[in-house]
């Protein structure tokens, strides 16, 4: 998330860019042809920005933005042909069409991830293309309006279209900026970097992804509508074709994915390049323009794999003085409200699991687990590898749906809730392998967790700083998460889970992989949580650390609960020893016990 000053700078940059385009159009460019190319540059930039809102921020790649573009173009063309609807009305209406298409497409498609999502998106425009062919809309032309051309967006002067396209681009840039600077955009970035972690931190990933697709679709459709007005001829191949989707993606990849200016840079360079090659080489060496274009893209991808924008930014920031100390963050002082104390250890049952069972194929990962955690204690779950410990956590926080059984939390059933809903009820969790958002700063990583409770960005920031203070990481707040040590990562994840003031914390092997020195710090934090009244359930391999830490042990083996009780008793239980060390050892222990 950018600071306010940065956002303001960006706003000025957008204004400067708009002025530059106007000067270019009204002062420098004389020919109608260049005005047309300029208009196309601006329009393709809008499409690419629309693509970037979904794909650049959330990481869900779409090969199908032609679908929205084409729907926009056809909305305008059909509206004008059959209802005499002016583009002044139908183009804004395209936003609705695009958003609706986004909702309809997203509903089934967000069940998929990664390549599968991208490929499924590819299918929509291709299918729509055939639908429009079947409907008999192979060639539509927008009728020429000789009487009231302005009323129908038909300008004599090509600069009219430049202004319109520029206006649309400015809107798209401002929307993108707004997205980047909001918790919406930051949540999308969190989804991009680690979707399960975002979900577990209380972000309703489904809803945000849908919103992003709808926003992206609306923008793309509006741009497509204006494209129809400029081209005046709409055919399914031109607007739904693979090339449109590819254009959206190539421009953003070239310029810099996930950046405000990347798609614009891509459009400014590549659209005139392609057109210039077409104009100069098309009738001399037909087809060579495609080869040169392809080579240009390959070269850029090799030289600047993340896009021109990031490459230039890296170059630039490397030259900047490296020793600049990170701005000191005011330690969360008096201006932050003291943490609302969790209800004092009441001893009432906080989490109750009844007969939880789940199978993966033939493997019974959990089998009839009954567990009751009274509020306020520090509970440990131990068990050998594959015992089902993490699976149990995944069932509690909603990543997995159990086949049978019921879970109640603070007296309310939470069985079958999605992770973000579970999180909102007051259950935080960390992961066995730390799920950080590596490209965000430590503070941003934690702020993501604050989106549940905080009304404003400022409150979220303060809450995050407070949580960082609790785990002793406030000095590292501005560091990028990718550069932290294991201990710091664990603490950061802990802070993220703590931000929304959970009543129950699920810690999955928080102590794993830590040296003796590091261990102490984390154990201290965990004890402190308990002192503050938070109930903690922790998974651990290392029996030694756990015996010192917890009040109560539960032992899992092969998906079953084999022992439960005070640590000293449980470690002497022959079944536990057998599970950990084998029958031989359990016999040996069992003898002196007699």
């Amino acid at each position: 998330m950018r600071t306010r000053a940065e956002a303001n700078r960006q706003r000025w940059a957008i204004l400067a860019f708009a002025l530059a385009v106007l000067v270019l159009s009204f002062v420098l460019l004389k020919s109608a042809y260049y005005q047309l190319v300029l208009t196309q540059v601006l329009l393709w930039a809008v499409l690419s920005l629309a693509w970037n809102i979904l794909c650049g921020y959330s990481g869900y790649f779409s090969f199908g933005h032609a679908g929205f573009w084409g729907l926009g173009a056809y909305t305008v063309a059909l509206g004008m042909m059959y209802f005499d609807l002016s583009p002044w009305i139908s183009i804004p209406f395209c936003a609705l069409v695009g958003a609706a298409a986004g909702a309809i497409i997203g509903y089934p498609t967000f069940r998929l991830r990664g390549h599968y999502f991208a490929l499924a998106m590819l299918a929509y425009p291709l299918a729509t293309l055939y639908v429009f062919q079947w409907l008999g809309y192979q060639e539509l032309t927008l009728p020429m309006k000789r009487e009231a051309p302005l009323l129908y967006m038909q300008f004599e002067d090509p600069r009219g279209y430049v202004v319109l396209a520029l206006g649309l681009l400015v809107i798209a840039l401002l929307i993108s900026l707004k997205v980047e600077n909001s918790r919406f955009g930051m949540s999308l970035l969190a989804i991009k970097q680690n979707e399960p972690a975002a979900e577990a931190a209380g972000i309703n990933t489904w809803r945000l992804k849908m919103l992003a697709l709808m926003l992206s679709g609306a923008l793309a459709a509006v741009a497509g509508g204006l494209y129809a007005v400029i081209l005046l001829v709409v055919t399914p191949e031109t607007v739904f074709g693979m090339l449109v989707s590819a254009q959206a993606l190539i421009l953003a990849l070239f310029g810099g994915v996930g950046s405000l200016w990347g798609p614009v840079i891509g459009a400014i360079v590549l659209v005139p390049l392609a057109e210039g090659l077409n104009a100069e080489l098309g009738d001399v060496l037909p087809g060579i323009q495609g080869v040169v274009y392809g080579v240009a893209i390959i070269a850029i991808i090799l030289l600047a794999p993340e896009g021109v924008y990031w490459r230039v930014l890296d170059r630039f920031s490397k030259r900047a003085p490296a020793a600049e100390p990170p701005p000191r963050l005011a330690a969360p002082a008096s201006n932050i409200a003291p943490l609302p104390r969790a209800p004092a250890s009441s001893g009432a049952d906080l989490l109750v699991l009844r007969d939880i069972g789940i199978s993966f194929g033939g493997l019974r990962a959990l089998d009839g687990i009954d567990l009751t955690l009274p509020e306020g204690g520090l509970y440990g779950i131990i068990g050998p590898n594959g015992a089902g410990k993490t699976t149990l956590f995944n069932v509690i926080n909603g990543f997995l749906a159990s086949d049978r059984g019921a879970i109640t939390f603070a007296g309310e059933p939470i069985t079958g809730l999605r992770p973000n809903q579970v999180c909102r009820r007051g259950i935080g969790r960390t992961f066995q392998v730390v799920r950080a958002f590596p490209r965000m700063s430590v503070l941003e990583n934690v702020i993501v967790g604050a989106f549940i409770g905080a009304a404003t960005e400022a409150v979220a920031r303060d809450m995050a700083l407070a949580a960082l203070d609790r785990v002793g990481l406030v000095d590292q707040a501005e560091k990028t998460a990718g550069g932290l040590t294991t201990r710091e990562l664990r603490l950061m994840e802990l802070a993220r889970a703590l931000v929304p003031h959970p009543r129950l914390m699920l810690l999955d092997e928080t102590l794993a992989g830590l040296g003796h020195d590091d261990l102490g710090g984390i154990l201290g934090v965990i004890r402190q949580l308990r002192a503050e009244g938070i109930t903690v359930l922790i998974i651990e391999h290392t029996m030694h650390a756990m015996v010192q830490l917890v009040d109560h042990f539960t032992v899992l083996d092969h998906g079953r609960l084999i022992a439960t009780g005070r640590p000293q008793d449980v470690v002497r239980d022959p079944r536990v020893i057998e599970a950990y060390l084998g029958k031989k050892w359990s016999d040996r222990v069992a003898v002196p016990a007699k």
Partner: protein
Amino acid sequence: MQNSPTRRSVTAGLALGALAVPALHARSAKAQAKSVKIAMIAPLSGPWARQGQLLRQGADMAVEEFNSQGGIKSLGGAKLEIIYGDAGDNTEKAKNAAQRLLSDHPDLVGGSGAWLSSFTLAVTEVTERAQVPWLTLSYSDAITNRGFKFVFQTSPTADWQAAETLPTALKLAEHATGKRPKTIGVIQDNTASPVSFGKYLREGGGLEKVGLKASVDQIFTPPLSDATPLVDKVRSAKPDFLLLLTSAMPDCKLVLEKLDEFKLAKGKMPLVGNGAPFGSPELLNTIGPELLEGLLFSVANWPLKGQEEFIERFKKRTGEPFATQDALCGYGDVAILKEALEAAGAADKLKVAEAIRHMNLTTGPAAQFFPGPIKFDEKGRRQDVPMIFAQWQKGVPLTVFPEDRALAKPFWPSV
């Protein structure tokens, strides 16, 4: 090819500097002092490049021949200069090409193109606003349905062709066999021109008017992967003849080969098509003369009686096995513009447009290149144009109708 050295060096320079600077414009305007500029926009790259090249070959030939014969006489022997734009593979590129040509050459007096109907629609949106008279061989009715004043369609429109093809085909059949066909089979794809053709037959009463019953009626989405289901229906229904409306050659090939496999080809099942692709040399190369023998197709323009000399010159110059609609129209459009310039007596686009509107040519090079007189109505459509039929005979598609300009006699394959 007629590229001046200037142009080549520009191109080479651009190829080197293309990555750094998208040089949009580097054309030197070194036009000769006394030349008149006309334009042609055609798909010179992309999937329709071959057709674009044929158009260009025809136009190049016309420009050279007219210039060597003394140029435009009414303009004191001014030479014609033709400027090409590449319409590429989509309407955006076609429109850009038009806008670029007009911006770079404000002195254009007329032009021709852009082959594919949707390209032509986009290109003429630009040329109409610039008031440049524009000729096109594209068939779509939409081109001249927009109330444009500067667009002239040299081909009969698609609807008109749809209305004329079957009556003429039936006449040919009756004449040759003494029997009037009663049933028809239709196999078509769902691209723009077959769809409008098919729409006329089914919804526009095209079949009823000529008393035909469709015993097979199949529409497919290209590309066809297997023609068996389509041809199987033809085999069991046995229509008196089969109307083929395919726009892509691979589909056409699949259907013809399947017909052969089912023993329906080589004259067993009379075949009628529509459009120039049915007479292309590529079809001959991929399908071979045997399967094509007897295939009839209606087309806007095809080599006619009176063009024998031109056809020989064309074959010699290009190495093509025969001339087709595209080359003829490329040549013919330049000829019309030349005649209009002669009549206008000025290198002025408005006067040239006016000359085309008042044209009524029945002799001379322009008239020789099109069937019927060169005469346009107020929409910009040709008047009194006969439907041309050509038929594959021994590996050459020969014009067989109308009789007065036919190069061969038609035969109706015996059923």
